[in-house]
């Protein structure tokens, strides 16, 4: 199977080509209901994670909301 390499929070991981962001996060055991996602320095709205596919060399970061003040 063809795989591509992407960076998730600074760690290189391998995913099959045509993997959606959502499938990638699930494979990494990330809790989808507690994070925002940025790809290449730009926010990717959560409602599109199931459609948007990982691309080779994507730099992806995930983080939670900070609500305190």
């Amino acid at each position, binding site marked *: 199977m063809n795989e591509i390499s992407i960076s998730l929070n600074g760690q290189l991981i391998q995913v099959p080509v045509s993997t959606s962001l959502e499938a990638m996060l699930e494979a990494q055991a990330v*809790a989808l*209901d*507690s*994070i*925002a996602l*940025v790809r290449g*320095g*730009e*926010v*990717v*709205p*959560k*409602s*599109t994670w199931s459609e*948007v596919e990982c691309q080779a060399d994507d730099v992806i970061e995930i*983080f*939670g*909301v*900070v*609500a*305190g*003040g």
Partner: protein
Amino acid sequence: MALDDKAFIQYSRQIMLPEVGEQGQQKLMQASVAIVGVGGLGQLCAQYLSAAGVGRLTLIDDDRVELSNLPRQMLFGQADCGQYKASVAAGRLKTGDCQVREKRVRLDDSNAQALLFNADLVLDCSDNFATRHSVNRACVALKKRHVVASAAQFSGQLMAFDLNEAPQLGCYHCLFPQELKVSESCSTIGVLGPMVGCMASMQSLLAIKLLLGLPGLGLLNRFDGLTGEMQRLKLRRDPDCAVCSAKETAVEVAQETASGDKNE
């Protein structure tokens, strides 16, 4: 309306900035800003904005000063414990040129639009996710400019939204939908005073820039207080956002989606 001599001297260090000038100072003096939450973030923003000569502030908070607030809420002292934060802060800041109104209520969906209706700019300085969403819903409904800051442990976030000038950035719900799980708040998770102060200072600076008409929209700033790193990330509207992408804005969204998404 020209500045009088006293105002000219008092605000001279601001006025000498080409980005401010006498005109900018007048803009500040005519501005009305609502501050939601007068805790670590809000008490400092209120001080900076009133000291900068902002004309009117509305301080919204139903909390009372507690001893454990003092390391990060330096507008308050031990003698203020048990008093309403909005009242203590208003009392301290009223002495200047700024008109300060206190609203000793908890902002929620039932009162948010009435509380924020007269503001030129809204600062979200609240300490919990539910209030942040109420502020956002009201700002979307009223099309108010809206600066959001937050801090917990060594993480800080800062961003601004303006559906009039920058609809493509969306709203707070586009970034952090209300279904998101969040457990932390300052009352349950540790934080250092200067960490909250950093975020409040950046929030105040961004607020003043927006009041002056300077650029400041478009980015989510993430500050890591341990490493000192600041990340600047581009915001993006969620075309399916339940809050800001309702029917009346469907045309705008369709246009943005057509011009934005297709080249990926």
